[in-house]
């Protein structure tokens, strides 16, 4: 009895750990600790459920241990090995596995019911069907999301005409089957179970198929909340309060997170789900032209990149002047300096539209003279620089001046920003500079574009950095 009490307390602690862990993860300073707390909660929950008194327990600890250990090892190594840039797709992959587990549970329970091993009531059957259905969507949906993010699958190839109609039909169909199964109290054939499973899996795939690659993070978050809900449902099946609450918690948190991600992109969730390919991805791609793909960076990512770097060099150009963003630029500078980032300005001799244009602007923004580097001082600095922010400059950071003998600016000394670890290019679109030549910098592997009016972007960036 004391054991049960102790394990009950452990479960309460686990539940609180989930909540507090998630809470701490929503603030940068405590985020890592939050993850640890949440992980500890999970460990406690597993232990409590492993050893808790259970009616009709046969235990089968061998099988369980085998499963848990195998899963842990695989999961751990996958997580350790994955490249930083591939993390989002791995989250999706992991989430899909969670969903797959729910599918298995739902299927076996349904099988048991159909085989007469168990005889669940209407409510329980509904819950089992829910588990299976949502688990399936989470499973195949996540897998497809993974494939899309990883570039294995091309968006356009897997979208059928009138895809939303098909999806709606599939949704109604699965719901109808669920209700039918519950209504007949599980008196169904094994084949029927199989059919339901297959349709559910197809629906999951089809659900994600029309959604654009750029919207994948939102979708993953949504599928994640599905996994949460399906876990909660499984908790009901197995009478586990912690599963129920943990699942509900993730379901709720995931939902609100999905909505917030949509908001951050200025889109509605519905728009993401039915709208097909993300519009942001389109604009960039359309303008990219022949020189290969460009990579965009989101404001938050840019903020993180800057915040956690040691040295930043700002390269102002005519665009800074047009946007009159000098003061905001200075604010970013101050914000970063406050956090121990060294910030300099690299001034190209012909940046702007008159000699000394940048000097005038930066003087207006009260940038101290020692922070300004001229061409000769800047170029040796770039290789030691973590991040270069190119603010509305174009010709003066054009590597074609060194690499393309045919270029009208070939031979002009330019700022070799591409030698820095990262380059963030702020401009409104892909238009050319004064000299009217293409700029390969924008397609360089180290550069990421941050589109928008320099002033607005700067202001938003300052806000993001402040939030860190």
């Amino acid at each position, binding site marked *: 009895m004391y054991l049960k009490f102790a394990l009950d307390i452990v479960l309460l602690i686990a539940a609180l750990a989930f909540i507090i862990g998630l809470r701490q*993860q929503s603030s940068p300073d405590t985020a890592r600790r939050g993850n640890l707390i949440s992980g500890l909660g999970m460990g406690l929950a597993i232990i409590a459920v492993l050893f808790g008194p259970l009616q009709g327990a046969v235990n089968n600890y061998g099988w369980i241990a085998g499963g848990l250990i195998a899963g842990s090892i695989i999961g751990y190594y996958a997580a*350790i090995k994955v490249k930083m840039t591939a993390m989002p797709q791995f989250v999706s992959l992991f989430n899909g596995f969670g969903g797959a*587990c729910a599918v*298995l549970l739902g299927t076996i329970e349904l099988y048991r019911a159909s085989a007469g091993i168990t005889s669940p009531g209407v409510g329980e059957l509904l819950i089992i069907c829910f588990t299976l259905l949502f688990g399936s969507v989470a499973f195949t949906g996540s897998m497809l999301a993974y494939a899309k993010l990883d570039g294995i699958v091309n968006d356009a190839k897997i979208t059928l005409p009138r895809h939303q109609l098909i999806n709606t039909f599939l949704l109604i169909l699965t719901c109808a089957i669920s209700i039918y199964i519950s209504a007949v109290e599980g008196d169904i054939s094994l084949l029927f179970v199989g059919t339901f499973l297959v349709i559910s899996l197809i629906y999951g795939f089809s659900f994600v198929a029309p959604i654009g690659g750029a919207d994948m993070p939102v979708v993953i978050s949504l599928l*994640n909340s599905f996994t949460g809900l399906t876990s909660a449902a499984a908790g009901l099946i197995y009478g586990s309060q912690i599963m129920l609450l943990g699942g509900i918690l993730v379901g709720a948190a*995931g939902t609100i997170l999905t909505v917030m991600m949509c908001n951050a992109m200025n889109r509605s969730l519905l728009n993401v789900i039915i709208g097909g390919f993300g519009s942001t991805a389109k604009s960039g791609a359309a303008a990219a032209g022949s020189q290969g793909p460009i990579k965009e960076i989101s404001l938050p990512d840019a903020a993180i990149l800057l915040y956690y770097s040691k040295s930043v060099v700002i390269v102002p150009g005519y665009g800074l002047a047009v946007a009159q963003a000098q003061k905001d630029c200075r604010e970013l500078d101050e914000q970063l300096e406050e956090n121990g980032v060294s910030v300099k300005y690299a001034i190209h001799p012909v940046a702007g539209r008159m000699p000394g244009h940048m000097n005038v602007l930066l003087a207006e923004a009260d940038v101290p003279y020692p922070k300004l580097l001229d061409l000769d001082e800047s170029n040796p600095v770039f290789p030691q620089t973590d991040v270069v922010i190119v603010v509305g400059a174009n010709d003066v950071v054009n590597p074609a001046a060194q690499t393309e003998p045919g270029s009208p600016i070939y031979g002009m000394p330019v700022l070799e920003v591409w030698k820095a670890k990262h380059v963030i290019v702020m401009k409104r679109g892909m238009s050319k500079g004064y000299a009217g030549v293409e700029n390969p910098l924008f397609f360089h592997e180290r550069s990421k574009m941050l589109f928008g009016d320099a002033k607005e972007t700067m202001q938003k960036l300052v806000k993001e950095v402040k939030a860190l």
Partner: protein
Amino acid sequence: MEVFVQFYETNQLLIWLLFFTVILGFEVISKVPTVLHTPLMSGANAISGIVVLGAILLLRQSEPDDYLTLIVGTLGAVLAMINVVGGYAVTDRMFEMFKKKKQR
């Protein structure tokens, strides 16, 4: 209707708990800065691996010779555990980037 009422009356506290949990789920996330969206999603994803408990419970209750259940259950445990361990590990790696700065 009666079923509902009865259900509610027996599970009253649980239902309250559910509602509170949903609100907590919302609250706990609602002020997260945009920069944390992705890692937080990953963190929540790890928790959703709690479905592993279902697999454990299934296995513990299954007959030792019911190989179908055992295999399916174990497979489920493997998959869910990948979700749990992989999820936490990836999240940790993401948050590593946010190590508190000394200067602050």
